[in-house]
């Protein structure tokens, strides 16, 4: 019988008290990998109790000692790097290189956690008034939870966990029920750390568990990454329940390619940005805007390069692109391509019917290029979250910027150019939280905040970087005077 996942609560692996289970499939081989419980409010409550209980002692554990746990954690993850990468491939469908890149980026976030003692700092002023000193003291807040998506099953949870707990909080993680195995293995490693019980807890589930997290009064804050509609619900529900919240939503990322761009290098990079992780990332390039005569050269070079992309099972290292996550995802993507065609776009590369030998039932969608896309088409407006790149024309640089700024989303935008003037103007004017200059995936390193504007982000403090130190701590102000005895 296939493994039924258990929750990790208070340092123990416990069965969820539920009868609902969802299957976890390998999207390339369709193998059933495990069954994931839909944890109930009662299960979430158990985790919250464990986390609250752990908080008192954990908060008193010196920050340098807390950081040492992250060192050990990093070492364990390095030791199991290949296993973790493989699990990511198996449950998510991306390629091994992409999975390795994901685990590596996760480790960067552990590194950031190790650095918390240098960033979680008080400050103060002596003699702010006569004989009176004023200080801010940074303190952990309590129990935090993260609700994370399927597209980076290792990396996204690890954006939050190390910083949250090294700041002195305790933590509950609810990974996507589509891809729970990376965190299952990760929590097995965490179990080896000898952390005080209850500092890290894993609760499996989907909507029911997420709802319980949002409403539980014992949780101080929630980090979320997912689609924009859900991000908005999370934001509203959590704030209504008195929580801190940072909710990263979806995206429709534009890339502007100017006539003065180095076309061959640019396209090589755009291609990675559009089709990496089969387009299933919130920083994926969705629309490439060719400015003036750049359009034709961009299209020609794109079609040439993309046609050579090798799609296959992620564990085969010659695969340059893997599957999408599920049958539903594939159907949605295929339908959106068809809808784009209906609305007038030209399909110059069509991935809808791609078959991969040996994996005929796999959830593959081939790299797709839609041409002559216009701003009102659904493929220009809505997030596809698949390996589909739409090409748009702009007569001028200014028109390209206007196209980009018209989007409801504001996660990332990139410009490919050799002009310093245009690059500066782009950074200045474009309404997106992450800007790439000759870089197609403007992914912030762990020590930078993960930007996001408009419907791509709900909240005040972004994930990662110093924002996350602020999110996971509160600053208490102390005003202090002593009477001479």
């Amino acid at each position, binding site marked *: 019988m296939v493994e039924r996942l258990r929750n990790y609560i208070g340092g123990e692996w416990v069965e969820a008290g539920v009868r609902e289970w969802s299957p976890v499939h390998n999207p390339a081989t369709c193998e059933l990998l495990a069954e994931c419980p839909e944890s109930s409010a009662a299960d979430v409550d158990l985790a919250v109790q464990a986390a609250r209980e752990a908080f008192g002692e954990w908060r008193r554990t010196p920050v340098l000692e807390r950081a040492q746990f992250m060192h050990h954690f990093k070492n364990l993850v390095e030791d199991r790097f290949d296993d973790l990468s493989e699990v990511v491939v198996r449950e998510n469908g991306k390629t*091994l290189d992409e999975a390795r890149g*994901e685990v*590596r980026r996760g480790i960067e976030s552990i590194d950031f956690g190790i650095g918390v003692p240098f960033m979680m700092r008080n400050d103060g002023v002596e003699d702010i008034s006569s004989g009176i000193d004023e200080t801010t003291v940074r303190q952990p807040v309590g129990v935090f939870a993260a609700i994370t998506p399927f597209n980076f099953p290792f990396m996204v949870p690890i954006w939050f966990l190390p910083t949250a707990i090294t700041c002195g909080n305790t933590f509950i993680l609810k990974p996507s029920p589509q891809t729970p195995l990376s965190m299952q293995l990760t929590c097995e490693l965490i179990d080896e750390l000898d952390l005080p019980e209850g500092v890290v807890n894993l609760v499996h589930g989907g909507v029911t568990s997420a709802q319980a997290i949002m409403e539980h009064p014992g949780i101080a804050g929630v980090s979320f990454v997912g689609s924009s509609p859900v991000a908005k619900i999370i934001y509203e529900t959590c704030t209504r329940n008195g929580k801190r919240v940072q909710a990263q939503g979806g995206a429709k990322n534009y890339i502007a390619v100017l006539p003065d761009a180095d076309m061959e290098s640019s396209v090589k990079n755009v*291609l*990675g940005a559009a089709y990496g992780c089969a387009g299933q990332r919130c920083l994926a390039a969705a629309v490439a805007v060719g400015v003036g005569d750049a359009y034709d050269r961009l299209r020609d070079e794109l079609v040439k390069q993309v046609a*050579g992309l*090798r799609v296959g099972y992620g564990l085969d*290292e010659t695969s340059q692109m893997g599957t999408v996550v599920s049958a539903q995802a594939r159907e949605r993507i295929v339908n959106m391509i068809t809808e784009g065609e209906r609305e007038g776009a030209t399909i110059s590369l069509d991935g809808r019917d791609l078959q991969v030998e040996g994996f005929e039932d796999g959830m593959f969608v081939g790299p797709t290029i839609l041409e002559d896309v216009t701003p009102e088409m659904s493929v220009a407006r809505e997030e596809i979250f698949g390996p589909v790149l739409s090409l748009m024309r702009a007569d001028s640089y200014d028109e390209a910027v206007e196209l980009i700024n018209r989007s409801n989303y504001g996660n990332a935008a990139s410009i490919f150019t050799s002009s310093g003037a245009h690059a500066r103007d782009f950074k200045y004017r474009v309404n997106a939280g992450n800007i790439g200059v000759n870089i197609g995936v403007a992914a912030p390193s762990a020590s930078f905040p993960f930007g996001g504007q408009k419907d791509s982000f709900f909240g005040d403090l972004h994930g990662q970087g110093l924002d996350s130190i602020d999110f996971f701590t509160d600053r208490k102000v102390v005003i202090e005077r002593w009477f001479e005895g």
Partner: protein
Amino acid sequence: MTPLNTFGAIMTQAIGLEQGLADYYERAGNNDRASACARRRQKMMRIRREAVLEITLEAIDGLDSDDYALDLEDVSENGQARAASTAARFYREVAPGINVRQARRALERAAREHAGQ
């Protein structure tokens, strides 16, 4: 025909190559080279882990593992020279396809080391 079209494919090829050569040199009684290969294998494994940056993954083309087949039967001086030369050529030719400095430098260095042996 196995294309070396990804960072991982190239690094895995390098790891296999060093493993094969380590065994080969050991059979040839050349312990210094054998242990140098074993060390490089470790290093290539570390680089496959550490130098993979999700934001800079770009497809690589024009390389195929068949072009770097080693004859690991012939342990003569000449055979060893040919093996070293093939290994050096492998590293020399794959290095430019890698866009992560640390990895490219390690591959270039491996080319020099094999060539220098």
